[in-house]
């Protein structure tokens, strides 16, 4: 895996229409993004189509990356995950559209945020481990399986009118642990 800084430079070049940089970016990141699509969709053919859509989007949206302030892998993963979840939901219910959420906006952090992201990565294992097992499971299911509150309520046998509070409690505990 290329360094995050390399990936950021590649995205910057792609924003200028550099096709070679696009090929490099694909080489460096396609396995991770295909992995995300495959994990969500659990179907190779669909994951391939999804990954194709993701890279086409990346080509067109690269110029917006520079102002959105996310670490480069987070930006790419967010696009891939949201695209995959959209496909998954379309499969279940017809078009619903999470697409807009792919446009994660600027938080304006500096380069120090990139360094933080790497240590976050290590801590996330510990912090997910600190959560009650059902909350950690629920967070994974929402993030990687696209499950909705309704589905969570059924699965974890929590009344629908409190499932939101139930999940939020887990999310806030995760945040608290990660920012500790």
């Amino acid at each position, binding site marked *: *895996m*290329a360094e995050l800084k*390399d990936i950021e430079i590649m995205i910057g070049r792609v924003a200028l229409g550099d*096709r*070679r940089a*696009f*090929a*490099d*970016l*694909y*080489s*460096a990141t*396609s*396995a*991770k993004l*295909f*992995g*995300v699509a495959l*994990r969500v969709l659990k179907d*190779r053919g669909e*994951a*391939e189509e999804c*990954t*194709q859509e993701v*890279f*086409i989007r990346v*080509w067109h949206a690269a110029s917006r990356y520079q102002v*959105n*302030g*996310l*670490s480069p*892998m*987070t930006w790419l993963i*967010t696009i891939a*995950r949201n695209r995959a979840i959209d496909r998954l939901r379309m499969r279940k219910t017809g078009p619903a559209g999470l697409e807009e*959420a792919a446009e*994660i*906006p*600027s*938080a304006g*952090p500096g380069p120090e945020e990139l360094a*933080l*992201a790497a240590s*976050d*990565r290590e801590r*996330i*294992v510990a912090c997910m481990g600190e959560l009650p097992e059902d909350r950690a499971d629920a*967070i994974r299911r929402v*993030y*990687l399986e696209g499950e909705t*509150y309704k589905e969570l309520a059924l699965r974890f046998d929590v009344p*629908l*009118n*409190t*499932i*939101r509070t139930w999940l*939020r409690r887990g*999310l*806030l505990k*995760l945040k608290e642990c990660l920012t500790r």
Partner: protein
Amino acid sequence: MSDQPGQGDDGDAGLAAEYVLGLLGPEERAACDARLESDPAFRAEVADWAERMGSLAMTEVASVDPPPQLYGRIERELFPDQARRWWQKLGIAPAILGAAAAAGLAWFAVNMDWLTGTEGPFTPAYQAELAAEDGGLLIRAAFDPETGTLALNREEGAPAAGRDFELWLIEGENAPVSLGVLPPTRLARFELPEGATLDNSVLAVSDEPEGGSPTGAPTGDVLAASPVSAL
């Protein structure tokens, strides 16, 4: 949902997380979209959640190499104008350079194995395009003199039942020499006879009985022929 949405005792953290996770209904999402425009603190909260979830994916989701032809599909969709050498369409990526190549080279090598039957790069130095006038047959060929591999990509056309396509090499004024019968697969690999060269040569495909010409010379129609050009 019947619990109180939006700001609760958790400030915006819960809402921002739900936004990133795609748990909000259309109205709440639209409200968040509007806030993102005007509220830097909320923007930062959303970005933080995106990073947290991105870290989760980086940590817990395994990388999987996509199939080698995927890049070609993306490239064709994005850059239809781009003149591509056909072997790139076999899934051989454009030159992949630098540190970023580590992941890419693995599948590059796999494809090369298929093309060359050995380890090592396939570096075409000659190509030919065999096209029937009626468009019913299109075969592209590329040759790497280093490995002696002639790779064929049959893009259009298939022999009739009980018939085969046979590939011929015609060097200069010499009689055609059979390189073999095309397999049913789209991609095929041939080797040139000892001492054969593609300089000043023609490749041709003829329609032959199943198993190939019984005489050692073309017996059926020559469907397409093309001079071989150096790259």
